């Protein structure tokens, strides 16, 4: 049933599709389109049949120097067994139509303790000629992973026969940070759900999993040194991540060229840290009643000793060189827990802060720097923007922009942060947890338009724009758990993935992009992932059938 158009005005023309009024035809999709769009791609107007489900359409040959590379061996298996649409019978043999793809990687295989990091080279060249073998070349294995995904997307299935588009591709990402934030505190996410999102990130060439692991509601991370934190802070003893699970997720992500960036959010948002005695400041309401605390007590020496030990462990567990230190929304709790707290007031007075809680915040952040200096010299620190807006962040730190209810506010933040010489990551326009009825990936202004938000769209010099590292689409956990996170993220996050990878001049128009995104959504569904319909009535040749 459609709401009368007249009631809803112009917006309804975009969201309602009577007689395909403005929704695209349900079957409109590309065959062998690439998502995100490569920087340079030339289709040769030619596709060839490479076999059927019962033959072996594709054979992947790894160059000698990477023949034994764990990452590539794993990826090869993933594509041949699961993701190339998928092929059903790996045991079948080559035949005359089998396409051979040779993969060469100049720098060879990373060591097993090498993880993808900022600066990873994701560039690749792929050639699928009209006849003969296809070649994929990359400097680093990470580029080869991106190239294999692109290669897999040139393949399409029609009437039980596989075809591949012939094309020449030279490709590299526009931004180095292309991320998804998951929040395992508001709702717990089983490891399998996290692994599936990592798979989907790889299929969208995203490379940073921002793991907001603890917050007010729960503390699912099991600390080896401080097991009380999860014992007292997790929802239940089952709603936890033990070190084996965390290691497994980090390695799973590494095999897909994805970095796992942990966030330890302090001093606010810490309500679940109640397993560390004395850590949280006592809070009281204006009428003097004790209320639950969500902020640490920055006046106690033992809290810094605890934090130093806790971060030492975090840095041992997570090899990623970016360390997210949070720092958002402190102002929610400073009044009730710091200014109203007699001991903290005394401390502030003693240090000459008087009534100024911002000075106490500054004090906290400088103490945090001091304790991190000896243990985290190899790491880049990231803070939510308040630490820049209100406090003084470490000069080399990266500022994560999440505020701004208008495009102007967002642009102003980007301009200010980069003018001060900080690198920046943008999330403000990509809060995918906020859902809306309709095709919000391409419409809705500040409440959507994910495809159209550009992190470099602000007034600034080239040097300022070069400080923008990329963006992170956030899926805050208030309303999501394993039952709905996957469909809610994908393919809405695919819109973000293209904005962060592709040339903006070639990706100006969402309606032009749609046939390609439609194929990509159906491809994710065919691979066994719950990518939901986001653009009005449509169908895929392989619909979601399973639970």
């Amino acid at each position, binding site marked *: 049933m459609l709401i009368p158009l007249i009631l809803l005005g112009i917006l309804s023309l975009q969201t309602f*599709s009577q007689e395909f009024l403005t929704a695209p035809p349900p*079957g409109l999709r590309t065959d062998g389109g690439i998502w995100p769009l490569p920087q340079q791609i030339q289709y040769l107007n030619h596709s*060839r049949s490479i076999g059927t489900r019962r033959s072996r359409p594709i054979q992947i040959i790894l160059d000698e120097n990477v023949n034994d590379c764990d990452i590539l061996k794993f990826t090869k298996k993933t594509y041949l067994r699961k993701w190339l649409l998928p092929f059903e019978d790996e045991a079948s043999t080559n035949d005359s139509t089998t396409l051979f793809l040779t993969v060469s990687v100049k720098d060879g295989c990373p060591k097993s303790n090498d993880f993808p990091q900022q600066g990873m080279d994701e560039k690749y060249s792929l050639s699928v000629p009209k006849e003969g073998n296809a070649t994929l070349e990359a400097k680093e294995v990470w580029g080869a992973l991106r190239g294999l995904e692109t290669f897999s997307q040139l393949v399409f299935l029609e009437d039980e026969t596989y075809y591949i588009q012939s094309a020449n591709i030279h490709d590299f990402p526009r931004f180095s940070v292309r991320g998804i934030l998951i929040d395992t505190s508001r709702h717990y996410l089983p490891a399998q759900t996290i692994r599936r999102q990592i798979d989907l990130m790889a299929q969208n060439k995203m490379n940073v999993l921002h793991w907001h692991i603890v917050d007010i509601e729960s503390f699912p991370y099991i600390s080896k040194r401080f097991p009380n934190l999860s014992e007292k802070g997790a929802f239940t003893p089952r709603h936890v991540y033990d070190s084996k699970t965390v290691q497994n997720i980090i390695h799973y992500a590494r095999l897909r060229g994805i970095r796992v960036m942990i966030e330890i959010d302090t001093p606010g948002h810490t309500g679940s840290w109640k397993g560390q005695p004395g850590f949280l400041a006592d809070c009281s309401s204006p009428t003097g009643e004790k209320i639950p605390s969500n902020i640490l007590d920055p006046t106690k020496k033992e809290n810094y000793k605890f934090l130093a030990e806790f971060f030492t462990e975090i840095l041992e567990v997570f090899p990623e060189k970016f360390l997210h230190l949070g720092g958002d929304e402190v102002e929610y709790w400073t009044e009730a827990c710091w200014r109203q707290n007699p001991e903290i007031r005394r401390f502030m007075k003693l240090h000459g802060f008087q009534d100024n809680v911002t000075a106490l915040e500054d004090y906290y952040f400088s103490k945090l720097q001091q304790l991190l200096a000896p243990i985290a010299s190899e790491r880049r620190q990231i803070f939510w923007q308040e630490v820049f807006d209100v406090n003084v962040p470490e000069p080399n730190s990266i500022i994560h922009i999440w505020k701004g209810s208008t495009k102007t506010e967002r642009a102003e933040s980007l301009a200010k942060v980069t003018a001060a010489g900080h690198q920046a990551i943008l999330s403000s326009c990509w809060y995918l947890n906020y859902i809306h009825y309709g095709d919000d990936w391409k419409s809705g202004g500040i409440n959507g338009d994910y495809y159209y938000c550009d992190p470099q769209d602000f007034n600034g010099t080239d040097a300022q724009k070069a400080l923008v590292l990329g963006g992170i689409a956030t899926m805050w956990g208030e309303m999501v758990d394993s039952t709905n996170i996957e469909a809610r993220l994908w393919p809405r996050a695919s819109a973000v993935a293209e904005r962060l990878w592709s040339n903006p001049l070639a990706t100006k128009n969402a309606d032009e992009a749609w046939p390609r995104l439609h194929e990509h959504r159906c491809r994710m569904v065919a691979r066994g992932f719950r990518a939901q319909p986001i653009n009005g009535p449509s169908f895929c040749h392989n619909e979601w059938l399973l639970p």
Partner: protein
Amino acid sequence: MTKGGVWPLPWSITYLNDSFSINPSTFQFTTSLTGCQIIDRAFQRYRIISFPGYKSSSSFYSGKATTVNSVSVTVSSGCSTDYPQLEMDESYSIDSTSSNGSTITANSVWGTLRALESFSHLIYKDTSGQWWLRQAKISDSPRFPHRGIMLDSARHYLSVNMIKRNLELMAQNKMNVFHWHLVDTESFPYTSTKYPDMSAKGAYTPKHVYSVAQIQDIIDFARDRGIRVIPEFDTPGHAGGWHGFPGLLSACFDHLGNSMLPNIIDPTQTQNWNFLLNFFGEALDLFKDNYFHFGGDEVLDDMLQCWSRNKNVSSWMEANNMGNDTSLLLNYYYRNLVQRVQQHKNTTTMIFWEEVFDMNVAPNGSVAHAWKGETMKDIMDEMFDITSRGHRAILSTCWYLNYIRYGPDWGYINGNGTMTRGSYYECDPTNFNGTAAQKALVLGGEAPMWGEFVDGTNLIPRMWPRASAVAERLWSDPAQTTSADAAWPRLHEFRCRMMSRGYEVEPPNNPDYCPDFWDVTLPDYSNNNPSTTSPPAGGSTTSPPAGGSTTTTDNPSATSPPAGDSTTTTSAACSMHTFFSVTLTIIFALLLNVF
């Protein structure tokens, strides 16, 4: 979270403070009714879903608690082999306070099914993995006889398996009507034996169809759970998917005379009436319910574009003394449709969307389905209006679950209009100023999930537990269910219960957790018969390019590959649609500028 809370809330439930321990591996469902398949199959299901996740290898310790070993079921009117109908008796009572065994008593098999569901809600697991049965006495029956979910399989196809999963969840919520909006403008997945071209031409692909056997399977699956299947074949508008019968749809034109996508039936052609008689005759025989939905919504644009501006139609109107008044033709359409339906099966009660009742063409006893209105006042005025004219009514307007919004919309979000409003829990179908006789005409309500943005990937979590709020409103005593806050601990337990049973039921109410997590590897209890859960394999409508063929594009350096193979029928049709849609957009833009 409650322990042993029942959702929807029974009209009368008294808990004792104690619980009995219960051993899932030895607990018995017993009845003196032998050979009653619907009961036997229900026992099989409830043996499993009463103890979600239970493994027979688990150890059992009752400790000092008394263990109850069985529930004895009495069905006073005996077995039934009928299909459930509007008048079905769903009342039941439960007594789980005796250590000698619990009892369930119901007049009919339908009440027994509701009782088994309630009984399963009295069972809970503690953190040590021990199972318990709350001691309680329940006496219960529904407030409204019509408590439905509408699925739309035309905008996006829903697999048989998905429909069954949704039916299973409906049963767990004591909902009893599956309103199946089968076909629409976009596609025609219903297969007609007499007119196979309808789906051959109208379905998205030959895989995106429901065979007669699959429909029968769905009807029987629903019957096992006390759910009626009411199909909707929406006419004369919303008929764009009906292009498999040549000449059935009238050609449509914009104000410049350009062709538009046909979307309304041409009632001026005799052969169309033969078709409609045969087509509906077949469907009326296939579906077992005494009620049948004939749609009838949103025809104004089509009447202008496809009747007024269509020369053949307009000259026929002239010749038949209708002048240029298309409402007379619409009236003619319904009168003839009603006559054809009654000619075939005069026991069928017709349901129409509310617009049809403005024309005085619906036969006596038809049911009006309310869906229009921007505000709660509009909605209740409409309910008043329909019932004041003596029609029975079903309400959907306040329960458009396809309109999603951020936050706990089941109980707490109360925006200004239909699209921004949530608060499903508080919308009450009889909350209008009418006489008791008027209110008695309200049969109940349906939560629609229109399919523009929904398919198998997101149907279940988008529907549940938001639809559970509707389920309670339609079943329970309004005086005992006035507060979403009071209901939440019970809904929380129920959402976790559905999740433990293997369904991806989403968190509706901000941060929470359940004892179990939903995991794709959990068993699917609704999938009793895997061989019927997939659509039959079929060829594709698109003929593939010959091996090694060259596809053509205009621009060799284009960054996108061609959208489909240009030689195939599907993409050819698509590009036509694109053309229409672009044209229409321009026209709308012009109109908006003019006015």
